[in-house]
C-alpha cells in the first residue's frame, strides 16, 4: 500500500506553507518534535555559534524527525576509524549509546581502492559497462508530456485573464520585447510554481550539514518572506567533494592568518598592481599538482571559461564541443566567434564524424579553406549527467586528426583519480597529452577561482592576451591560501594522511551510494565512479515534491529542471562528499527509499541486486 502515513514523513499538501500555518507544516527544525524546545528565537541565537562549542546542545535539538536519532559530525576522518574499533557493534538507533562515525572497519580490500580505471577491458567496453543512461518508461514519458500540455494551457489562460506580478516595460511600443516570449512564459507559469525549491538561502558553512533559511510564499511563488526559523539538514547539494568546506581546521586557520597578515584584497587587476609572490607560488603549485609545465589562475571559475576562450579561439577556428557542456563554455564560444559544431554526448563515433567533416571540407565561410585550428571541448565530469568523459579515446582521436583538446575539469579535479588529480589521473593518461587543462577551485578545494594549465608557451600567451588576467582583480589572499593549503593536503605535502583518506572516503561513498540507489530501483544517470548522482524524476511536480519532502526530513538536495536539463527530464542531483559518514548516507537512502515508494519514482527496469551492499 505504500508509506502514506501522512503526518511526519510525507507531505500531502504539495503547496506553499502559508504564513498562517495553513497546514501546519512549516519546515523548521522542530516540525515533528515531541517535547523539544520550540523557540524560533532560540534557533537563531544558537545556530550562529561555532559548532565546536554548541555541539552538544545542537546535537540534541538538531534532528527531531523520529526516524533519526543523531548525526555526529566529524572534523577529521582519521580519528573515526580508531575510535570506532573500540566500540560495541550495535548500530540500532535506539540501542546505540554513542554515534559511530565512519564504518567500523577500514578494510584494505578492493572495495577501498580509490577511483581508478580498471584497465582490464578496452576503454569503450569499460565505459559502456559502467555508465548507464536508462530509457524513460513509456507511461512516464506520456504523462510528462500530458502534464506539460496541461501546464501550458493553464499558463495561457493565466496570461489571458490575470496580470502577472512582474515589472513591465513602459513607453516601448514598437520595440522588440526584452525577453524571449517562451522564456518569460516558462519562468512565470511553470518555474514559478515550485520556486521555493530553487535558489534556497543558507546560513551556515555548507559542510556535510547545512542550515537552510526557511521561507514561505503567500501568493504561490511570486514573493517570499522569511519565517525566521532555520532547518538543519544533511547536505547533499553542495559541491563539497573532498569536504574542505569547513569553518575549522588547518585550511581555515592558515587562511585566517594570511588574511591578518596580507589583508583581504589586492584591489587591482593582476597585470597592474595585483601580482605577488603568493599568486606565483599558487600557479607553480597548481602546475606541479596537475603534472604540467605551467598554470595561470583567475578569480572566478565561470569567467575563466567565458573570457579565455575568446583569447584562444577566433573566427577561423573549428570547435567541436559536447552536447551537454556548461553554460560558461557556450558563452565563451559565442563570444569568440569560432565555428561551433556539437557532437552527441560522449559519443565517439559522432565526434569522429564531425572531425572528419571539419577537416575534409574546411571552412565553408572561407571558401573551403582549412580551419586554422580544430579544438575538441569536453568536460571531465558533466555535472548534470554525472557521466565521465571518455578521455583515452578522445586523445586517440585528437592525435589522429591533429586537433587540440580543452578539458574542463571543474567537477573532476580533486574528486577523481587515485591521487585526486582529475580524470587524467583516473584514466592513467599523461596530462601533457591534453593541450589545455582548465578547472575551478570552487568544488573540491573549497575556495573560489579557476585555473588554466598547459605548456609554458600557452600560459605565457594567456598572460599577455587573456581578458580575465588583464582586467579581473586577483584572487584575494585568504582564498588563495585556502587553495594552497587544500592542494598541499591532497598531495600529502603537509605530512598527514588526511588527503589520501579523503580521496578514498569519497570513492567509497560514491560506490556505496550509487549501488544502493541502483538497488532501490530509481533511475540514475552517469558513470559508476562519479560523485555527482542525478536521480531522474521526469515530472516537474515530482521535483517539487521530492525537494520539499526531503527538506521536511532534514535533507537538502538540489532539483534541476528546464533549462538546465532537457524539458522532459527533471532530476534531483545528489553531490556526495568525503565528509559524509556511512550513517548519514544510510539515513539519506532510507528517506529516498520511502519517498520513492510514496511518490512512485522507482522507474528502473534493471535487475536489482538482492544482496546487501557492503560499504
Amino acid at each position, binding site marked *: 500500500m505504500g508509506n502514506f502515513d*501522512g503526518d511526519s514523513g510525507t507531505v500531502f499538501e*504539495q503547496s506553499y506553507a502559508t504564513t498562517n500555518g495553513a497546514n501546519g507544516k512549516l519546515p523548521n527544525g522542530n516540525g515533528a518534535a515531541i517535547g523539544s524546545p520550540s523557540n524560533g528565537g532560540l534557533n537563531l541565537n544558537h545556530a550562529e555559534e561555532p559548532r565546536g562549542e554548541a555541539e552538544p546542545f545542537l546535537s540534541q535539538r538538531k534532528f527531531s524527525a523520529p526516524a533519526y536519532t543523531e548525526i555526529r559530525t566529524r572534523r577529521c576522518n582519521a580519528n573515526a576509524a580508531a575510535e570506532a574499533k573500540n566500540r560495541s557493534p550495535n548500530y540500532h538507533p535506539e540501542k546505540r549509546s554513542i554515534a559511530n562515525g565512519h564504518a567500523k572497519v577500514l578494510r584494505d580490500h578492493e572495495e577501498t581502492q580509490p577511483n581508478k580505471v580498471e584497465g582490464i577491458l578496452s576503454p569503450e567496453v569499460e565505459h559502456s559497462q559502467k555508465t548507464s543512461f536508462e530509457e524513460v518508461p513509456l507511461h512516464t514519458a506520456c504523462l510528462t508530456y500530458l502534464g506539460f500540455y496541461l501546464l501550458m494551457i493553464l499558463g495561457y489562460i493565466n496570461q489571458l485573464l490575470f496580470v502577472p506580478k512582474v515589472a513591465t516595460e513602459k513607453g516601448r511600443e514598437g520595440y522588440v520585447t526584452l525577453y524571449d516570449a517562451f522564456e518569460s512564459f516558462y519562468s512565470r507559469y511553470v518555474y514559478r510554481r515550485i520556486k521555493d525549491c530553487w535558489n534556497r538561502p543558507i546560513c551556515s558553512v555548507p559542510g556535510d550539514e547545512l542550515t537552510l533559511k526557511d521561507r514561505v510564499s503567500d501568493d504561490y511563488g511570486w514573493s517570499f518572506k522569511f519565517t525566521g526559523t532555520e532547518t538543519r539538514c544533511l547536505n547533499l547539494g553542495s559541491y563539497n567533494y573532498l569536504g574542505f568546506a569547513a569553518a575549522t581546521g588547518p585550511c581555515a586557520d592558515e587562511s585566517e592568518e594570511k588574511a591578518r597578515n596580507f589583508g583581504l584584497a589586492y584591489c587591482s587587476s593582476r597585470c597592474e598592481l595585483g601580482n605577488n609572490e603568493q599568486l606565483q607560488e599558487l600557479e607553480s603549485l597548481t602546475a606541479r599538482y596537475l603534472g604540467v609545465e605551467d598554470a595561470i589562475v583567475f578569480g572566478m571559475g565561470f569567467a575563466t571559461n567565458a573570457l579565455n576562450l575568446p583569447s584562444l579561439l577566433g573566427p577561423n577556428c573549428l570547435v567541436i564541443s559536447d552536447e551537454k557542456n556548461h553554460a560558461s563554455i557556450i558563452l565563451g564560444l559565442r563570444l569568440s566567434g569560432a565555428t561551433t559544431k556539437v557532437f552527441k554526448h560522449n559519443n565517439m563515433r559522432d565526434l569522429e564524424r564531425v572531425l572528419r567533416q571539419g577537416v575534409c571540407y574546411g571552412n565553408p565561410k572561407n571558401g573551403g579553406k582549412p580551419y586554422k585550428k580544430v579544438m575538441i571541448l569536453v568536460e571531465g565530469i558533466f555535472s548534470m549527467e554525472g557521466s565521465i568523459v571518455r578521455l583515452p579515446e578522445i586523445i586517440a582521436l585528437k592525435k589522429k586528426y591533429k586537433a587540440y583538446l580543452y578539458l574542463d575539469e571543474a567537477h573532476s579535479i580533486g574528486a577523481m583519480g587515485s591521487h585526486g588529480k582529475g580524470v587524467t589521473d583516473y584514466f592513467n593518461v599523461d596530462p601533457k597529452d591534453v593541450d589545455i587543462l582548465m578547472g575551478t577551485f570552487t568544488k573540491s578545494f573549497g575556495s573560489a577561482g579557476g585555473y588554466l594549465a598547459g605548456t609554458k608557451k600557452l600560459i605565457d600567451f594567456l598572460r599577455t592576451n587573456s581578458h580575465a588576467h588583464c582586467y579581473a582583480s586577483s584572487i584575494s589572499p585568504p582564498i588563495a591560501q585556502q587553495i594552497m593549503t587544500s592542494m598541499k593536503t591532497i598531495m600529502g605535502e603537509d605530512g598527514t594522511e588526511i588527503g589520501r583518506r579523503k580521496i578514498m572516503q569519497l570513492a567509497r561513498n560514491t560506490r556505496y551510494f550509487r549501488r544502493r540507489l541502483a538497488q532501490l530501483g530509481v533511475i540514475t544517470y552517469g558513470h559508476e565512479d562519479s560523485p555527482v548522482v542525478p536521480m531522474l524524476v521526469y515530472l516537474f511536480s515530482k521535483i517539487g515534491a521530492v525537494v520539499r519532502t526531503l527538506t521536511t526530513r532534514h535533507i537538502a538536495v538540489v532539483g534541476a529542471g528546464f533549462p538546465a536539463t532537457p524539458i522532459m527530464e527533471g532530476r534531483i542531483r545528489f553531490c556526495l562528499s568525503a565528509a559524509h559518514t556511512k550513517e548519514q548516507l544510510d539515513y539519506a*537512502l532510507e528517506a529516498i527509499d520511502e519517498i520513492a515508494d510514496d511518490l512512485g519514482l522507482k522507474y528502473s527496469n534493471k535487475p536489482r541486486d538482492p544482496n546487501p551492499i557492503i560499504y
Partner: protein
Amino acid sequence: MISDDEDWVRRHQVPHLTWNYDDNGVSSQRTLKPTIRRLIPLRSSFLYFSMFEKLAEDYAKCKRYVKWLYLLYELNTQIAICEPWEKVFLNVLLGSCMSLILYASFAYVPGYCLSVFHLLWPLAGVQNLTTGSVCTANIDGFCGNESGAVL
C-alpha cells in the same frame, strides 16, 4: 489491564529500522523496505477490542490509500503544483475528457465493431434465427446504436 495492553502493543509493533549489522559492518538484513506504520493508539483495553475497531482501522486504511492514489494522480498530471482554482479547472477538464472518451467507447465502439463485422462477412447475419431477432431488436433504442449501424 495495563500490562495486557502493553503486551499487545509490544507484540504488534512493527520494527522499523532494525539495523542488524554484524562485525564487518555488513547489514544482515536486506536493506530498506522500512514500513513506518504509526501505531494506532488503543484507548480501550484488550478485552474490549472488537470488530468495530477493526472495521474502523480498515476504513481509515482505505481512506489513506485513496488519498495516496489521489496524490499520485495529482503529481503525475502536475496538478499538484497549481493554485486551487487551477486545480478545479484542470480536474474538470480532465474529467470531461475522460468521460467523453469513456462514453464514446461504450456508445460507439460496439456499433462500429458490428458494422465492420458485417462488412467483412456480409452473409453472416442473413439467417434469421430467434436469437438473432432479439439482438437486432436491442440495437435500436436508447443505448447502443448512436453509430447508426444497420443490419
